[in-house]
């Protein structure tokens, strides 16, 4: 009896211990997690404290940190080593988990944290050569003494923070996911930059384009996927003279052999990580000095991708946003200049079909002979499972991501193909930012840009001397016209990248007569530009809207620039809707919601306002219409862009593509538009209930800012937002302006900015999501570029002195 009681009690106790001590499923281990002395209850403690003094081994001299009322640190150091040491320390203090998680993701190490579920993801990172590219960039950074010193000082600063942590003070997400931080390294900084390269240059539709060409032929491809799309208003003004002697352009190697790849599912739609930037010169502004604006659009997460900081040393005084994990300021301004970036979108990623000699994959066909592959062994540790050893075969093009018999992790990755990607090349992008942070004028800006490889960006520039400029900048392969639009032949040397476009031949413009420069991810140039850089850019809507507004504006103030960033007009609707409405007759519609919906569209000014129903109606109508036009012919093939579809139905409402080939009668737009309208109303009713306020854009679409690891409770879902991805205010369901900045190049420089999050990455901090609501409203905060630690004292809340040991 006693024994039985003992056994029952002991079994229950052991079960309780095990159940609480071990991580079960997605939940954290509840014993350590709930422990009020070391678990999550500790994660509000100290996160918002601003100590007056700290001693840090590794500093060379005291560093003064001044905190403003938005918890932006203003770092005043006596030398650059201490400056970047302090940046690393402060960023880690606020954002350590995010920094490490992003680099774990880039390196394909998420399985170490969450187990087998992430194995396919990790394998794909390894096979795309993320670590390989990062390792090569570390070697390149090591060759540049000032760059390497910056990276090493930053690394030491991050590690100075990590060394202060213990299990009770680990950031919250480590406790939820049950793992521990590891030391920071320069490789992690390189991995972060490769992660950005993947985000901004990693979309690719060559496999789908190749299948579509096989089905439709070359002339249909030229019509449906034009090299220069309809309605386009390019970044460089069309009348721009090219003042350089272009290199000889390689000639195409003749017809390519038919692709041998097995059909795969269609490529997923391009996520279009778009952005806007522009600068206007003094002739158009009230102050007589340039104004510059930038809002990069990215996947919106908490913690935010950006961290605001001012960096001041004897060599630099710069303010702006940094990427946690990287030293220097990435977008910002100093006392003389301001700069911003949008994604360039030029093609720097090609897939090459590979013919292996045999199953050993030791050699591949090239130029009539065989070339050896180089195997690279990747070791993927898996939590709660066996370590996976993965061999990736590298050709001179790059890694063969998936062997012919393997299932790729992404639909956009063709099987049996090698990846030639600019992010595999040694590069020193950080040097660009190091120099931009210190730039005093246009020449310094140009020099800084020459060090930049990937992800290529449109760098907008303005300075207090009155210059404005914009360069489509990065390292671009020298291609024949159309090279890399389809899968390339890995056997044929003529398909290799043939060299590089010289940096000074990149598309760029300085002080154009029209008085402004702008970019919104659209085509960089009109067809007069001698080099071929790619074909798949953002459609015209945002770029054309920005240009028409800037051309019309005069006496511009910073508030006007802010208003333009919030402009909600969608040019696609303005281009197409009148034609569609002309085909609709209210008398043909049943009374009630259908007639109300039509009236709402007729009254609409094409603005995507949160409270309006018309935008929801238009988006649903267009989606139905586009589906009806293309589904019969293309089904699972590539679908043309919405700009091409718009041009098609405006030019020829009876075009054969509009006909539904599955029916005997011949349909035209006159048939499709009313049918699509009716179907849209049905779809919206199913999704949101009866016609009414639930159909308003802000509720039917809205925006979710999710946690970076999608942990419930740590995001900000269901924000009632205006905007759309084709409007200047490019706010979508999970994407949007990740930082809005307006800079007036007066003396002194004035600036305003805001990102949808907060300075702190700690969910227990009062500064975790501080500015989310202000972002929804479209507010901007004045940004403080201090000349000394005591300036603007009314907005400063505390001072911390970091003392060397």
């Amino acid at each position, binding site marked *: 009896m006693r024994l039985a009681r003992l056994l029952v009690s002991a079994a229950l106790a052991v079960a*309780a*211990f095990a159940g609480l001590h071990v991580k079960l499923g997605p939940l954290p281990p509840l014993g350590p997690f*709930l422990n009020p002395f*070391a678990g999550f*209850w500790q994660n*509000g403690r100290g996160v918002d404290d601003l100590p007056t003094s700290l001693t840090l081994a590794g500093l060379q001299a005291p560093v003064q940190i001044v905190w403003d009322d938005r918890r932006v640190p203003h770092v005043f150091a006596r030398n650059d080593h201490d400056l970047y040491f302090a940046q690393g320390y402060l960023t880690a203090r606020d954002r350590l988990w995010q920094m490490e998680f992003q680099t774990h993701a880039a390196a394909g190490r998420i399985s170490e944290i969450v187990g087998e579920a992430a194995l396919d993801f990790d394998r794909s990172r390894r096979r795309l050569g993320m670590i390989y590219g990062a390792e090569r960039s570390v070697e390149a950074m090591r060759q540049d003494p000032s760059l390497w010193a910056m990276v090493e000082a930053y690394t030491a600063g991050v590690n100075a923070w990590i060394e202060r942590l213990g299990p009770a003070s680990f950031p919250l997400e480590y406790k939820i996911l049950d793992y521990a931080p590891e030391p920071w390294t320069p490789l992690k900084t390189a991995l972060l930059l490769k992660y950005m390269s993947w985000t901004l240059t990693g979309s690719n539709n060559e496999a789908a384009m190749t299948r579509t060409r096989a089905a439709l032929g070359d002339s249909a491809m030229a019509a449906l996927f034009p090299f220069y799309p309809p309605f386009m208003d390019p970044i460089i003004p069309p009348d721009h003279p090219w003042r350089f002697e272009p290199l000889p352009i390689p000639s195409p190697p003749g017809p390519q052999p038919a692709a041998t790849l097995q059909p795969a599912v269609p490529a997923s739609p391009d996520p279009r990580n778009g952005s806007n930037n522009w600068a206007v010169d003094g002739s158009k502004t009230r102050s007589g000095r340039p104004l510059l604006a930038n809002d990069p659009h990215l996947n919106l997460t908490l913690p935010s991708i950006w961290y605001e900081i001012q960096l001041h040393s004897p060599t630099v005084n710069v303010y702006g946003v940094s990427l946690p994990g990287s030293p220097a300021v990435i977008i910002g301004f100093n006392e003389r200049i301001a700069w911003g970036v949008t994604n360039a979108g030029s093609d720097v990623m090609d897939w090459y079909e590979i013919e292996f000699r045999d199953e050993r994959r030791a050699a591949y066909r090239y130029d009539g002979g065989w070339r050896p592959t180089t195997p690279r062994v990747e070791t993927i540790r898996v939590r709660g499972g066996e370590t996976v050893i993965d061999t990736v075969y590298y050709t001179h093009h790059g890694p063969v991501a998936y062997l012919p018999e393997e299932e790729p992790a992404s639909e956009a990755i063709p099987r049996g193909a090698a990846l030639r990607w600019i992010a595999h090349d040694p590069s020193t992008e950080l040097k660009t930012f190091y120099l931009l942070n210190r730039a005093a004028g246009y020449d310094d800006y140009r020099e800084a840009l020459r060090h930049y490889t990937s992800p290529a960006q449109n760098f907008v520039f303005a300075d207090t001397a009155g210059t404005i400029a914009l360069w489509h900048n990065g390292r671009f392969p020298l291609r024949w016209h159309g090279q890399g639009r389809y899968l390339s032949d890995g056997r044929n040397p003529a398909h290799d990248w043939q060299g590089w476009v010289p940096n000074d031949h990149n598309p760029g413009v300085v002080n154009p007569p029209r008085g402004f420069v702008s970019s919104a991810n659209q085509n960089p140039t009109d067809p007069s530009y001698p080099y071929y850089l790619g074909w798949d850019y953002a459609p015209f809507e945002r770029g054309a809207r920005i240009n028409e507004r800037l051309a019309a504006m005069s006496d511009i103030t910073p508030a006007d620039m802010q208003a333009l960033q919030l402009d909600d007009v969608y040019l696609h609707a303005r281009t197409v809707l009148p034609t569609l409405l002309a085909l609709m007759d209210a008398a043909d519609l049943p009374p009630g919601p259908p007639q109300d919906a039509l009236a709402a569209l007729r009254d609409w000014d094409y603005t995507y306002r949160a409270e309006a129903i018309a935008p929801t109606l238009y988006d649903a109508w267009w989606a139905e219409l586009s589906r009806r036009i293309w589904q019969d012919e293309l089904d699972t093939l590539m679908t043309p862009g919405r700009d091409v579809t718009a041009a098609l139905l405006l030019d020829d409402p009876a075009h054969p593509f509009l006909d539904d080939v599955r029916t005997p009668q011949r349909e035209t737009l006159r048939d499709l538009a009313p049918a699509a309208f009716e179907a849209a109303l049905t779809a919206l009713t199913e999704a949101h209930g009866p016609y009414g306020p639930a159909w308003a854009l802000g509720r039917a679409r809205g925006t979710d800012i999710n946690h970076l690891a999608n942990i419930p*409770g740590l995001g900000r879902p269901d924000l009632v937002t205006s905007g759309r991805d084709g409007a200047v205010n490019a706010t979508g369901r999970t994407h949007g302006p990740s930082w809005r900045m307006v800079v007036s190049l007066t003396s002194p420089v004035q600036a305003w900015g805001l990102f949808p999050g907060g300075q702190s990455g700690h*969910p*227990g901090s009062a500064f975790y999501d501080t500015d989310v609501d202000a972002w929804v409203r479209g507010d901007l905060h004045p940004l403080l570029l201090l000349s000394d630690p005591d300036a603007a004292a009314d907005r400063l809340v505390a001072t911390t002195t970091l003392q060397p040991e």
Partner: protein
Amino acid sequence: MGILLCLLILLALQWTTPFWWWVMVVPFGYALGWARSGGDGFLTGAASAGLLWLGAALLQGLTSADLVAARIATMLNLGGAAWVLALATGLVAALAAGLAGSTGFYLRAALPTRQTGKDAGKPDR
């Protein structure tokens, strides 16, 4: 008395080390030496650890952990209510500590006649 003793020992150990399982070790040890019954072992453990964790959680939740507790209460589907989370914290500790406490007593009772206290194990006979 046992409750207070356990609670103070637990507080000292938890304050100085990050290990959660003191809430099982301490009641087990107490019951092994001093509990009068399985129920006494359970209650002493449950009350000391449960009160300590409940109190500490409430104290943190009312001060520095107010924001994080609300977020975790959402993550765990507790409707964002931090007080429910504090209650759950106390209950988890109470259950684990109680089972450890009763096991401690039953182990002693099952050991061959090593009488460490007056009439140890008597209520069980």
